[in-house]
């Protein structure tokens, strides 16, 4: 049976209980998974049941709900199923299992978590702010995982007092820091007016990027590994 969720943690935990004893269970929030002839059910969030499942899981491993949240943020098509496999195994073992890497469900979940952590780290470097007329900074980002808000503390520490916006363009939402408070907000399209010197700084940056390169040593394959193509769109130096 396919269990469809609405993508939230509560809906997932409700589905987790419903699917627990079903050996053929497949949990997903993506309609694309629907195959003809397969039985399916939509499981909305049931707060009471979700809370019960959460308590039970926490009693086995106090960090597993944090892991679940990160898995669901990963943006990977198999995320719910991956979390299901991991948490089901955890419930059978009744103790933390994250070190049992020879078990495929554990390895898959841990690798997915590592990918999310890595993306957060990488984006700390691959964000490009544009300076607006008001002095505020605006950066469009295209992360694979839903991590816009998780990038905020890093920049908040650095930019003390300068207002900034991180705009997750595909997800149409933003993390906004007005210099004091930070909050999340839906954002379709940003209307910004650039500061007078913004274009000049961008040009100097492009010039710098070209100047430090050693043209005799092209290694494009390696670059794609270190700086995935999905981020290139917003990297000023590449345009």
């Amino acid at each position, binding site marked *: 049976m396919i269990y469809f969720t609405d993508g939230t943690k509560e809906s997932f935990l409700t589905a987790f209980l419903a699917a627990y004893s079903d050996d053929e269970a497949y949990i997903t929030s993506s309609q694309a998974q629907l195959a003809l002839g397969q039985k399916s059910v939509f499981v909305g969030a049931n707060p009471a049941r979700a809370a019960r499942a959460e308590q039970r899981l926490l009693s086995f491993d106090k960090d597993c709900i944090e892991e679940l949240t990160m898995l669901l943020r990963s943006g990977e098509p198999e995320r719910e199923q991956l979390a299901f496999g991991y948490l089901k195994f955890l419930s059978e073992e009744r103790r933390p299992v994250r070190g049992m890497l*020879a078990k495929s469900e554990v*390895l898959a979940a841990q690798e997915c978590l590592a990918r999310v952590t890595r993306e957060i780290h990488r984006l700390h470097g691959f964000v490009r702010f544009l300076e607006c007329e008001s002095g505020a900074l605006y950066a469009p980002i295209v992360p694979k995982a839903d991590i816009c808000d998780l990038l905020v503390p890093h920049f908040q520490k650095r930019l003390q007092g300068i207002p900034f916006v991180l705009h997750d363009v595909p997800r149409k939402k933003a993390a906004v820091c007005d210099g004091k408070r930070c909050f999340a907000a839906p954002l379709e399209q940003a209307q910004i007016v650039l500061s007078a010197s913004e274009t000049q700084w961008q040009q100097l940056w492009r*010039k710098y990027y070209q100047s430090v*390169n*050693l043209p005799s040593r092209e290694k*494009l394959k390696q670059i*794609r590994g270190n700086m995935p193509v999905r981020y290139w769109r917003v990297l000023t130096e590449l345009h």
Partner: protein
Amino acid sequence: MIDAKRLQILTEAARFDVSCSSSGSARKNAGGMGNGYAAGLCHSFTPDGRCVSLLKILMSNDCVFACKYCMNRCDLDVPRASATPEEIAELTTDFYKRNYIEGLFLSSAIVKSPNYTMELLLRTVKLLRQTYRFFGYIHVKGIPYADDGLVEEAARYADRMSFNIELPSEKSLKLLAPQKSKEGLLVPMRTLEKKREIFREERPKELFLPAGQTTQLIVGATPETDGAIVRLSERLYRGAKLKRVYYSSYLPMVHDSLLPDRPAGQLREHRLYQADWLLRFYGFTADEIAPEGENLPLDIDPKCAWALRNLQYFPVEVNRAPLELLLRVPGVGGRSADKILKAQRYTRLTFDDLKKMRVVLKRARHFLTADGKYYGAKDLQTVRGLLAVAEQSGTCEQLSLFDHATAYSALTGEF
């Protein structure tokens, strides 16, 4: 704002410094802009595969010295440029604000005199820290033969400093950089390190080069062997307590009868980084890595070469091996060793388990048993041949496997 032309001259001349890392400092933002990121952070990668983390720039390329290998030497007719401390400070903070960079790597040719130059560098870092309230990463080059007092003052504002040795022996220095000497470079490094020690013990709250010192060696311009270079690095790590030694394979930029006309191979540089990694993280000594008068083999990595010379330690049983021994198995790096140690606690690992855990076995299988089973080749000749093949097909894959912790330098050589 600095103009594009000068920016180009001053940064093109700085790119031969391969040190790119912004790691090792957790400086806090004390009410301004910026802070340290202890693990280091890459902001971009250039088409040559190198990480861009710092704004690398010279104060000036107008040198009074004449090191033969250098584009800035005084007897060459090349465009000259200089920037003011204000221009550098503005450029750094404006780049930093837009998240282009992690900080500044400030170097310079020797303008007028060593002291004059060191004073310029000092003025720039002071301006950044005090007036611009900039707390991001700053790496400042130490100018050889400048007064200790100036160098030490710069060290109070910088996160890292470096004196570049460039040529791995006194003889080569005499020949190619006649105004420099090995002692002239090593003495200030030692003095700084002593000072650092004193600060750490007596004034632990005050920062004094939190990210330590580094240096750079040019490989392939002069006849020193890898064995000699690895020994020099070992002394620099264990004696002078340097944080990193960078290797830069020689690229001819100026013609000189004393220098080779062709660039040195990058594979050699890569092998040196691998050997360096063995020194720093895997507990190897220079003696184990390469005999004094020899080069590292190019067809296999230095750990494989060591293992083949020391078959008495192998095969190692993964279920019993401690970390030090696992790290000596060819093809097993820090991350794989870590996975193995974690998983060992729950189950007796078989080869299948290792595969499932994505431990790369191409090389390792010749040196391991898992649950008593051995899947490697039977004799030494075959092993060496297979390792060389694994190496050829594996190099690219390996480089792209670098994770975030090491990606800031695809040059680091972890394997």
